[in-house]
């Protein structure tokens, strides 16, 4: 599959490496290609271009930028390049503010998530929330003593969720579909919770699991 990744940070690079490992073709989109020179030197299959280049290239796109920049980046990528495509939304609405004693501050509120805002603004895009509540070290092929962790996903388009579910399966995750875009109100705050064991014990190698 052709994957366009919007972003050049740790999350973008971790997911790009995971996709390449499974034989997908990857183009990363960034405003500053120099940020990715070391990555492309180590990952020969990865290509780098503008946000628009990555969006045009990808059959599936990954939004891996800071939450407050997410809408701007989609606009930069050109809505025509994104329209109708599956977009894996990894973003968290973390405010540009220091955390409060280890608890992240969000710029959204309990009855509105970042993904709903994006879905409302870019109504032709098929957003699926995923990868937002785990650090990049565990995104691809997490090896934890408790077995495969669970990735909670949501989005309004059933086919898009099936596509993302297949990717998550390749990446070694159990998948729990939490329903429509509104469920992002519950999934996005999991990132706050995910940080707390790190805050208490400086241990970041954990993930959530649904047990029945």
């Amino acid at each position, binding site marked *: 599959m052709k994957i366009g990744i919007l972003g050049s940070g740790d999350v973008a690079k971790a997911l790009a490496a995971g996709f390449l490992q499974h034989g997908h073709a990857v183009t990363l989109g960034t405003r500053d290609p120099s940020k990715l020179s070391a990555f492309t030197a180590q990952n020969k299959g990865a290509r780098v271009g503008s946000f628009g280049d990555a969006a045009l290239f990808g059959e599936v796109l990954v939004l891996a930028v800071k939450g407050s920049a997410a809408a701007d980046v989609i606009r930069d990528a050109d809505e025509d390049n994104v329209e109708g495509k599956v977009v894996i939304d990894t973003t968290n609405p973390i*405010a540009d503010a220091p955390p409060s004693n280890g608890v992240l501050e969000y710029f959204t509120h309990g009855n509105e998530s970042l993904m709903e805002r994006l879905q409302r603004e870019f109504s032709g895009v098929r957003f699926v929330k995923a990868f937002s509540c785990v650090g990049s070290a565990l995104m691809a092929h997490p090896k934890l003593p408790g077995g495969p962790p669970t990735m909670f996903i949501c989005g309004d388009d059933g086919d898009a969720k099936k596509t993302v579910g297949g990717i998550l399966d390749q990446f070694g995750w159990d998948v729990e579909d939490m329903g429509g875009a509104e469920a992002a109100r519950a999934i996005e705050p999991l990132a706050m919770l*995910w940080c707390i064991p790190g805050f208490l014990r400086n241990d970041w190698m954990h993930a959530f699991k649904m047990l029945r």
Partner: protein
Amino acid sequence: MASTDLKRTLLIGITAGIVAGVVVALACSKKSDEASKPPLTQAQRDSAIAASKLPGAGVVGRALEVADSAEARSNKSIPEP
């Protein structure tokens, strides 16, 4: 024969005493290491979140830098007594 038994008993007793002493010493040193670790400051804890590689957590690091430099500026402007 009785003397050999006595020697063996003494040897076992001494060895057990040494082992117990070493165990106690190690336990105490571990406790003292833990006690001597300074607790993390809030800024150190918050910085750890910035380094967690969680999607979007980079903004936390930048916000802390801004807060730190603002505090440093404010401290500089306080006249010395």
